[in-house]
């Protein structure tokens, strides 16, 4: 006790002038993270003349014209619609097939289960660059090129394994006795799964959905390769604008800001599961 008092007194004496180092470290780190994003936001609210002719830390004459351009021009806003369509399709497909599979992996042993689980993982880790060309040819040959479903199916390559892994992690936390009791009570497998089991892992389904949505939203290489006009994602439309000789920086920045919005909106709900999702359900 005496030791504790001695060791604490000098600390207390120093507390007043000393700043909280953790807070400073976090502050600096967050500043580092947010500065580039702020710069994009800043540019999106400026006119092109202001961007190119003067260097200002915040927009001097604030304008929403860049956003207006995007939201009124179908060539621009259809990009968002296209992206959203295939992302949602992908999320639905991924979850629909991953739910039963994850249940099987979490509850049963069957022939080849470990190999299958590993094989799924390798697909999550497969470089999209390897698949770009074969996908292009596969979907062209079955007549799905430049459709939303083609991109949605292509993204299943890494999202289905991800969903299976995340869901399996959550399902293992549900005691098996619940399944057995339900079967004794006369539930069929389907009824049990939908009425009892799915509500129990609702948060897991939400997290898996979020990560499927996210990884499909951020991916560009495959979605760009598989589309030309009708299903072109917003991300690819942005790249095209960059290639033009005169770059409309303001509109480009505004388009960028708008792609950050969907993630930023929902992240609050999954904040406690973020680590779990990125680690494929294994934290």
């Amino acid at each position, binding site marked *: 006790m005496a030791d504790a008092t001695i060791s604490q007194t000098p600390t207390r004496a120093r507390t007043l002038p000393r700043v909280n180092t953790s807070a400073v470290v976090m502050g600096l780190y967050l500043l580092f993270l947010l500065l580039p994003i702020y710069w994009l936001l800043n540019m999106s609210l400026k006119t092109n003349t202001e961007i190119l002719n003067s260097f200002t830390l915040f927009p001097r004459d604030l304008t929403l014209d860049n956003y207006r351009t995007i939201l009124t021009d179908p060539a621009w806003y259809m990009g968002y619609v296209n992206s959203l369509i295939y992302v949602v399709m992908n999320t639905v497909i991924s979850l629909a097939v991953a739910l039963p599979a994850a249940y099987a992996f979490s509850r049963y042993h069957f022939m080849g289960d470990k190999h299958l689980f590993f094989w799924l993982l390798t697909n999550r880790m497969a470089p999209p660059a390897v698949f770009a060309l074969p996908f292009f040819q596969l979907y062209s040959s079955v007549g799905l090129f430049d459709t939303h479903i083609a991109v949605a199916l292509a993204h299943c390559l890494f999202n289905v394994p991800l969903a299976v892994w995340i869901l399996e992690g959550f399902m293992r936390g549900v005691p098996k006795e619940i399944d057995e009791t339900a079967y004794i009570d006369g539930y069929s497998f389907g009824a049990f799964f939908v009425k009892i089991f799915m509500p129990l892992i609702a948060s897991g389904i939400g997290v898996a959905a979020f990560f499927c949505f996210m990884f499909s939203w951020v991916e560009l290489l495959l979605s760009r390769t598989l589309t030309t006009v009708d299903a072109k994602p917003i*991300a690819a439309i942005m790249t095209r604008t960059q290639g033009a000789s005169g770059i409309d920086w303001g509109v480009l920045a505004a388009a960028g800001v708008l792609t950050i919005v969907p993630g930023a909106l929902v992240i609050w709900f999954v904040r406690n599961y973020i680590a779990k999702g990125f680690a494929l359900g294994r934290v």
Partner: protein
Amino acid sequence: MNKTVNQKAWFLVLPVLVLVAFSAVIPLMTVVNYSVQDTFGNNQFFWAGLEWFEEMLRDERMWNALQRQLMFSAIILAIEVPLGVFIALNMPKGGFWASFCLVLMSLPLLIPWNVVGTIWQIFGRVDIGLLGHTLDALGIDYNYTQNIFAAWATIVVMDVWHWTSLVALLAYAGLKSIPDAYYQAAKIDQASRWKVFRYIELPKMMGVLMIAILLRFMDSFMIYTEPFVVTGGGPGNATTLLSIDLVKMALGQFDLGPAAAFSIMYFLVILLISWVFYTVMTNLDKKGM
């Protein structure tokens, strides 16, 4: 959990199997096909055996790309892992501020990859970017489209910006699983801050940290979009990483045979690392961490 043996469980996995087979096995077989065939155009193919593989293995180009790729992965791991752990140690332990930090830190992770590239492309420009302008004003010669060092610095800093939070989030999750009793015991023993880190926090974090390292290694190994948007692989070929080179070869020059052989070797490397990853993960599962 003790699992029961049930072969009928195969029916539950079947949809996944069919879907992933469609989107993985068929394309992969196409690649294998190309890698052992040659063409004179007109869709006429003939057997080439292992020629493409031999050619690629002798080709300077692939080795150079591999070298740059390994260097890139090594650099970003050397920065992101210690930095991520350091950030995790400094995060608020709970309450509103912890959530606040979690949300802001996750923000870069949710930005589409080419937008990440665009953000840094703009940020680093000398005429309109904050970073480029500031460095220029300080008298530092910085131009990521011409200067090799500047190009590398930009893509490395960009990756650190993009992914350090992932390491930090995982390390934080590991830290939070340490019971308070451990810290109290350390306090009774009057352990120094360093010793608490070395003997309590680090061993407890090791599991998730392994996952973080493997994930970062793997994802950095197949990085494409971000550096491509910023530097386009240049100046010259200075930042042409494996994926960039592969896409150039396959979709740009349509050299199907060599590109396919390249893909297969690329994929085998990934397979090997995936296996290490899987072993680490399943061992952790067994330990119940």
